[in-house]
């Protein structure tokens, strides 16, 4: 890998604009505080800058960002000094800006065990299918189906009816 493997500033800035929101959401469902989110941003985009990988299309690129972000979050969580408590207030810099309805939904997602949170986000927000999620997370497709169904039940229990029946 030579010096020309490094991506240009324009390319990196375009990626920052394009994927920051996705990374931020992934950080929210994994991390405990805002400072860690910033760490992950730097780690992921630095990796992108220095990476020689060429993407087949934008879907491929997006999946790469999701996988690298999730791995970076897991690495950070493995770190010895991290606490194990998550609340929206700690994760978001300005949680007050989020309307109460949405806050409740996000809090409900964060209250689920970690293995469900990725699946919920990738399935409900990013519209990935179970086989795609399986590839991104490196898990068996059947496991993903189980996680999707189970998380649906748990969210329903937490949030009640109110449009959560679907």
């Amino acid at each position, binding site marked *: 890998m030579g*010096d020309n493997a*490094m*991506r*240009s*500033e324009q390319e*990196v*800035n375009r990626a*920052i*604009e394009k994927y*920051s*929101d996705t*990374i*931020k*959401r992934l950080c*929210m469902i994994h991390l405990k505080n805002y400072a860690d*989110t*910033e760490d992950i*941003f*730097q780690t992921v*985009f*630095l990796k992108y*800058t*220095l990476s020689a990988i060429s993407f087949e299309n934008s879907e491929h690129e997006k999946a790469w960002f999701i996988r690298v972000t999730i791995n970076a979050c897991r690495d950070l969580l493995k770190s010895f000094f991290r606490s194990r408590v998550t609340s929206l207030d700690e994760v*978001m*810099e*300005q949680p007050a*800006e*989020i*309307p109460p*309805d*949405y806050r409740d*939904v*996000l809090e409900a*997602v964060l209250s689920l065990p970690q293995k469900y949170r990725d699946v*919920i*986000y990738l399935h*409900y*927000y990013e519209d990935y299918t179970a086989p795609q999620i399986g590839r991104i997370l490196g898990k068996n497709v059947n496991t993903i189906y189980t996680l999707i169904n189970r998380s*649906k039940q748990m*969210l*329903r229990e937490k*949030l009640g009816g109110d*449009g*959560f*029946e*679907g």
Partner: protein
Amino acid sequence: MKDKLREAFDQVRADEEMKNRTMVLLSQKTKGYTRWRAQNYRWLVPAMLCMLFLFAGGKWLYFTPMLEISIDINPSIELGVNRFDRIISVKGYNRDGEKLSDSLNVKYMNYTEAVNEVLQNETIVALLGEDEIMTIGVIGTGEAKSMTVLSNIESCTAGEKNAYCYYANAQETEAAHEMGLSCGKYRAFTELRALDPNVTAEEIRNMTMREIRNRIDELSGEGGNGTDAADSSADEENTCRENPGRKNAQDGHHGKRHKHRHSG
């Protein structure tokens, strides 16, 4: 449910400030997108530290003496032996000893080879030919290894009628080294001082073992022949048994030593 989740997640957005900070930081880290290899050498730091520790640890393991071999005729020398049975230091304790240690090339040799080398040294051969007494002491802290070394050295000296081997505890050598004497000389010195309180370490340092032995024999009123000298040497060794637990092992060696003596 899907819509509600989607809308909720839509509320979460990366703020411009964080994006900008990331852009600035990336630019700094890559030195304006020109140099990125510098940070790849970071792994070198722990690697170098590991190497340093390994090196220091290895050096410590190799260069810590486990026991010493004290050889006295008139030249008094001490050989430091490490845990791998190699000689790591050669020190002369008097003028002749220094001369001898300079002429010896035994560093990093196995101790049995080193003792053989000393025994074959011209000066030593000449001295032993003049009926001088040679003592070879193994100075350790009482562990089994010292006994193994002692028995190996005894087999090296089996052909020399005037060579005597003994074991001494390391504590004893501390007192010896404080006086600038080798262990063998120190033991002879303490024995002679018991009979003649006026004797000094200075005097002893450059006397031959035979001369010291003869002085002891004179003062204790015994005859000066070789057998008596050897017998009192055995008595002297009894006084050096500081560790009663080692008595049996040392008795075994005594038996062997007597055998050498009779064969002479």
